[in-house]
């Protein structure tokens, strides 16, 4: 496998729709413990809208597809995750530009643009117990893998493993950003919902790449 195709990107988004729907209650349950019990509902609402619109852009370039996802999430999710994931896909789309497929290096560029966008918007640091704690290690692993000569699939496998580890590593952290920060020490011992949805989204990409 040398390139990531537009079809794989579309399939990634379809898989994300499904996986977030399947994990709706799980994510909301995580958000009950340290938030306001809506993260699963929020993500599911947003990606249902994405599913509706996907057919209308499926033949566009990757940049357009991802930007549509970003706009849709911004105007349908709300909460903290809406603008953050909205920015993720918008900036990813901007980085993808008019490409119809992505080399391994280009995949790094696209996801780096996406993650940088989230960080600029949310200003969370590593260890703040947010989605960044899944996204940043994933990006580091992806970049390291590609630099070491792995193909997209191989590097993405590393990235997802890192995201999963980063997600689990949020459990002992005390939240410093988002709603969970109000809980102070009581946020310790719970897995961050946003880090969890980030892992699920990256894992969906991996599944799409395997095809």
């Amino acid at each position, binding site marked *: 496998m040398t390139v990531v195709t537009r079809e794989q990107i579309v399939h990634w988004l379809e898989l994300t729709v499904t996986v977030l729907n399947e994990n709706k209650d799980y994510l909301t349950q995580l958000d009950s413990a340290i938030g306001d019990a*809506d993260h699963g509902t929020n993500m599911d609402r947003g990606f249902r809208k994405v599913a509706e619109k996907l057919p209308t852009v499926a033949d566009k370039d990757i940049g357009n597809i991802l930007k549509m996802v970003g706009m849709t999430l*911004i105007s349908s999710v709300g909460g903290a995750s809406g603008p953050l994931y909205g920015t993720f896909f918008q900036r990813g789309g901007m980085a993808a530009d008019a490409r119809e497929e992505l080399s391994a290096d280009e995949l790094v560029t696209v996801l780096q643009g996406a993650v940088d966008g989230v960080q600029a918007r949310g200003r969370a640091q590593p260890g703040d117990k947010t989605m960044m704690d899944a996204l940043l290690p994933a990006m580091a692993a992806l970049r390291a893998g590609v630099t070491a000569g792995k193909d997209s699939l191989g590097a993405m496998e590393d990235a997802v493993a890192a995201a999963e580890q980063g997600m689990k590593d949020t459990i002992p952290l005390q939240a410093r950003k988002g709603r969970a920060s109000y809980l102070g020490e009581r946020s310790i011992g719970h897995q961050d919902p946003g880090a969890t949805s980030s892992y699920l989204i990256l894992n969906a990409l991996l599944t799409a790449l395997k095809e």
Partner: protein
Amino acid sequence: MKKLINAIPDVVKEQLEGMAAAHPDELKVHFEPNYVYRADAPVAGKVAIISGGGSGHEPMHGGFVGMGMLDAACPGEVFTSPTPDQMYEAAKAVNSGAGVLFLVKNYTGDVLNFETAAELAHGDGIPVQNILIDDDVAVKDSLYTAGRRGVGTTVLVEKIVGAAAEAGYSLDQCSDLARKANQYGRSMGMALTSCTVPAAGKPTFELGENEMEIGIGIHGEPGQKRMPLTSADEITEMMAMEIINDGAYTRVVREWDRDAGDWYDKSLTDAPFQKGDKVIAFVNSMGGTPVSELYAVYRKLDEVCKANGIEIVRNLIGPYITSLEMAGMSITLMKTDDEILKFWDAPVKTPGLRWGV
């Protein structure tokens, strides 16, 4: 889950339809994107005051749309901040040319979405400013965190700034007044029961028969600490003293620079209460606590304030910023000056707050 609702996805929409049917003189409702706006908007020459946030806090914010308070309110899903398109469309609908002030409760979601909306409105040439409400003393640390939540003070700021806008204040004057009133206000909340988000179907947290949560916000989130349930007097005294003894509070907020067309950081420090302060006291029901119990709280609050040299010169008692059907209450004290009292006393005509007209 026992609620008077129909299908869960329709909850917010149908409540808005009910509001529109009930209060045609005060307000209208626009759907997709959803926003509530003054029936007579835009009001010529007047700065438009817009707020918004997750639903589930009724009557806030939609119930405060009307003469002397809000020009528009943007309701999100239950406990989920609304989206920028709602805020942006609302701004376009109610802007008379004098500009739009977004009053934003300090939650990551609200802040980020209102920031995007401000950028969009600015792009359209609408003069705009975002002022944060962050008054919850239960949130201690502010340096590396999201800072204090916006809670009870929001209602008072909306009333006061709404009256100022009605009286002809400019956008900058309204912004300054909003910032000041927010800095004068401090709140704390407690819960006797959890609430149930319709989409979740079960209580957000479980509280034992003899437990209460102290330092809760308004989104059914657990609070600062769980404690054995005690008397109204002890709870009131504890919360009032946390508010009264709260020290100087410093944090950095982002405000909009209209000339630069960009955000800039602004450091704000709230001074603690002092003996001799005259305050508005606001005892708020979280939704499920009846007003009779609020009076038991007010009785003690009045006593504690007096004992600490603080004079209550106005009060507001009832369910105004709620968490669905949660039982519990919050206390807000806001220092006043002549400007704040003048606009507090000014007429207001909204479904949720009305006097003088």
